[in-house]
């Protein structure tokens, strides 16, 4: 039997959840035995080369590109897992939710205390740039997500246990200490 195929991505996240994947330490070697990686920042495969079994999603959707990537994952992965608070509930990027985008952009590019050198007073609007969404969306409010692993980041042990459970089909061990929202 061929190995299950795993893909990962970071949308509106900080890569902290990916760091947490690496935090499984030497078990990463076991992981490589267990699964084959496809599209993922970990192996730098940029496009899906085949259908995958599991997709791990870090980060919520803050712009149109995030939505496209997420939909791409949904099409190419049998199981999607929201990894961490941002994927589950928008996380810290979602603290802008409810505030008009115009205000956010003006704060970021014109009026904020850290703005230096924007002499032209331009808010970036190049057509190449992804379009911001009206709010940061949790992933499951855009596509169907099968599992959720909370945490900021999710504990490495939780990620490990979840992956092993998904790959082996065994019931997942969830000791109290590993489920945390921070």
């Amino acid at each position, binding site marked *: 039997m061929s190995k299950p195929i795993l893909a990962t991505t970071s949308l509106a996240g900080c890569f902290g959840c990916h760091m947490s994947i690496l935090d499984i330490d030497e078990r990463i070697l076991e992981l490589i035995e267990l699964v084959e990686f496809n599209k993922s920042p970990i192996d730098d495969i940029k496009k899906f080369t085949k259908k995958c079994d599991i997709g791990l999603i870090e980060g919520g959707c803050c712009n149109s590109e995030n939505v496209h990537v997420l939909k791409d994952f949904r099409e190419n992965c049998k199981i999607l897992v*929201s990894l961490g*608070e941002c994927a*589950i*509930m*928008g*996380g*810290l990027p*979602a*603290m802008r*939710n*409810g*505030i008009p985008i115009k205000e956010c952009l003006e704060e970021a590019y014109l009026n904020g205390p850290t703005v230096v050198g924007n002499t032209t007073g331009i808010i970036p609007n190049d057509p190449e740039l992804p379009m911001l969404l009206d*709010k940061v969306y*949790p992933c*499951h*409010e855009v596509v169907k*997500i099968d*599992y*959720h*692993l*909370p945490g*900021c980041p999710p504990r490495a042990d939780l990620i490990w246990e979840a992956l092993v459970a998904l790959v082996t089909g065994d019931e997942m061990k*969830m*000791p*109290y*200490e590993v*489920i*945390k*929202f*921070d």
Partner: protein
Amino acid sequence: MDTIIRITIDGIECMASRGQYIVEAAKENGIYIPTLCNYPGVKPKGSCRICTVKVNGKLMTACTTPVSQGMQIENNTSELNELRKAIIELLLVEGNHFCPSCEKSGFCELQALAYRFKVMVPRFPYSFPLRKVDASHPKIIKDQNRCILCKRCIRAVKDDKGRSIFAYRRRSHRVEVGVDAKLGKLLTDELAQKAMDVCPVGSIIVKEKGFAVPIGERKYDNKPIGSDIENISVSKH
């Protein structure tokens, strides 16, 4: 009249004293009924509804219902626990609960309940309301994003003349807990600390300090809420 009241909770015979609320009686018998808006020594209000039990088949809040002779109470049933989990999830989607940035994380009772009930993701859509952070008072910050409207501060924190420092404003989904502009300025350090301690979440924060306890050593990092009351460890359930 008898002062000893006999009740059963999930079929277990328990003794209680007259005038006791179900939550208290259960606690004395080593049975944990999850609560959130309830606070020891403060008049119960039954606003969060998490302590809902079935009393002789009827849904009642255990924090507001006094025991009576022969009461048959259902508590730890899948139906009630599912209801409680749903209410916890409702509270999580109602406000803006960004645990990673909250000073109360690890001490927050809403978060602790979510851990206990293994809330991985709320079933309801997030409402992401636009709410204010009121830092205009010298001693405290009132962060409306995190407020769960449990009324604990309203009931527990009064000035020396018995006047309310906190109170509800408006009604329906627009309700919020306001701080009295004048009395808020006069808050003593002691009352400010009390307000923060009484708040089950991170909505009332004493200014100029925070994150005093490292992650891993906080109240609910290793032991579920309610485990101090229970005889049996909950991680099995």
